[in-house]
């Protein structure tokens, strides 16, 4: 694969300053961080993208600072999440199928399982998430948390689902999306108020009324 222009990868102009590079890098790492793509079918691609970004950043920082403080900011270790064995071989098998992307097999195994402890609901929830069945995923994770409230892993998966929507909304908001946009009647009210104020002060904003 041919090397891409590192400036293009980071989305900055050529010859950008060190601070600009760092700022752009930080933004991108946040965007493509493995946490953002956990239990997402495209997780591998996001990882690749992040690797590309890290390479571009390392390259630029090496060249940008001749002073030699080119600390590689890319010590992103594989964020697999702490692996908790559930004390049963069966579920760890299902789990490894999910991790390797073999969703169909994992689902068949779960469906044929006899008992349904919290781990069952948790794994089923992960599978639903991969399939794009978010409502089912949420209720299964919720159930896993209810059955085993002390389990950190279940709880954090549920929290991540909640946080994920907020991240999207924050992004929309930054682009100018706003729920409390004044509609036409509010604007008219403002105009009318402004007109009254002007008239009180002896002037006039809207001459016809």
């Amino acid at each position, binding site marked *: 694969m041919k090397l891409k222009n590192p400036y293009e990868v980071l989305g900055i102009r050529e010859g950008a300053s060190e601070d600009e590079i760092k700022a752009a890098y930080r933004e991108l790492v946040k965007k493509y961080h493995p946490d953002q793509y956990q239990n997402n079918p495209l997780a591998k*691609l996001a990882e690749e993208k992040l690797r590309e970004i890290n390479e571009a950043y390392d390259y630029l920082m090496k060249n940008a600072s001749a002073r030699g403080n080119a600390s590689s900011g890319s010590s992103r270790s594989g964020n697999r999440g702490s692996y908790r064995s559930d004390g049963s071989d069966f579920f760890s098998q299902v789990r490894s199928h999910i991790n390797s992307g073999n969703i169909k097999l994992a689902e068949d195994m779960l469906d044929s399982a006899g008992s349904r402890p919290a781990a069952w609901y948790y794994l089923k929830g992960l599978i639903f998430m991969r399939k794009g069945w978010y409502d089912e995923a949420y209720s299964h994770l919720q159930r896993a948390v209810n059955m085993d409230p002390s389990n950190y892993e279940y709880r954090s998966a549920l929290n991540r689902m909640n946080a994920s*929507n907020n991240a999207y*909304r924050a992004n929309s908001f930054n682009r100018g*999306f706003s729920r409390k946009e004044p509609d036409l009647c509010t604007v008219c009210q403002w105009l009318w108020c402004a007109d009254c104020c002007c008239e009180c002060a002896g002037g006039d904003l809207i001459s016809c009324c």
Partner: protein
Amino acid sequence: MFGYIVPEKPEMKIKEYELFRAYYCGVCRSIGRRHGQLKRLALNYDSAFLAVLLSAIAEERVDVQRKRCIAHPLQKRHIICGSSIVDYASDINIILAYYNLEDKQRDEASVVSASALVMLKRAFCRLRKQYRDKCEFIESQLNELLRLEKEKCPSMDMAAEPFARLMEEVTAYEPVCAGSREEILRWIGYNLGKWIYLMDAFDDIEKDIRNGNYNPLVCQFGYENQSVSEFRQQIRDKVEFTLVYSLNEISKAFELLDIKANKGILENIIYMGMLRKTENTLGIRRCSEVEESV
């Protein structure tokens, strides 16, 4: 169930708006040129979005021309011409419009949809030969949907699956699917389909309750003779969660595409236009709420 994918116009740059409209007009013109003028009535925004998305990653150079059209005879408009992707989007437009009409006709036969079906029939038959695999897949998914409807499927995720898979197939246009793009486009398509289906379901709650038709949300959340607005209020948060989650997945997949053009338009639609549509459909932003806050 079409026309939900719209841009957030006030936040658009003027050049982006012009270009988006050029795609829209391009799809319209392509339908007219290749399938007959009357079929242009089947045009919708979703296929314009498809054209914008696919040509954002294609190598194809777009040719924008200023032309007059029947709908706007007085003013010349920018129109995208001679693009294979715009042609594809217009074909898909006709195909989906035809299936949609067929479905409507099955639910409640009317003179309007019957005559529209007759009008589209010939163009559709030609396209069905051309896109045999895609059409067969679409038909299998629609049959699956019909089966779920008959069974009164009580899960919105399960009910949305066939339509989501259908949109997934449509979005994966082979000529632009090199490398990892196919996977990304498919995930975008899947979530688009899911979003559209559920938006439509929420929109139709009242009508479906009145007519006794199947509605996944009514079945899942167990409607029990309360007032419709009360029911909508009750299920709103749950539905909103899934809808916004789908949009979020679309945005995450979109960020992985190597976009060559149309970035502003797509970001506008994905981050704002569709979110606005979601909130309006769910009735989250009300005039009264705004007034209270002032």
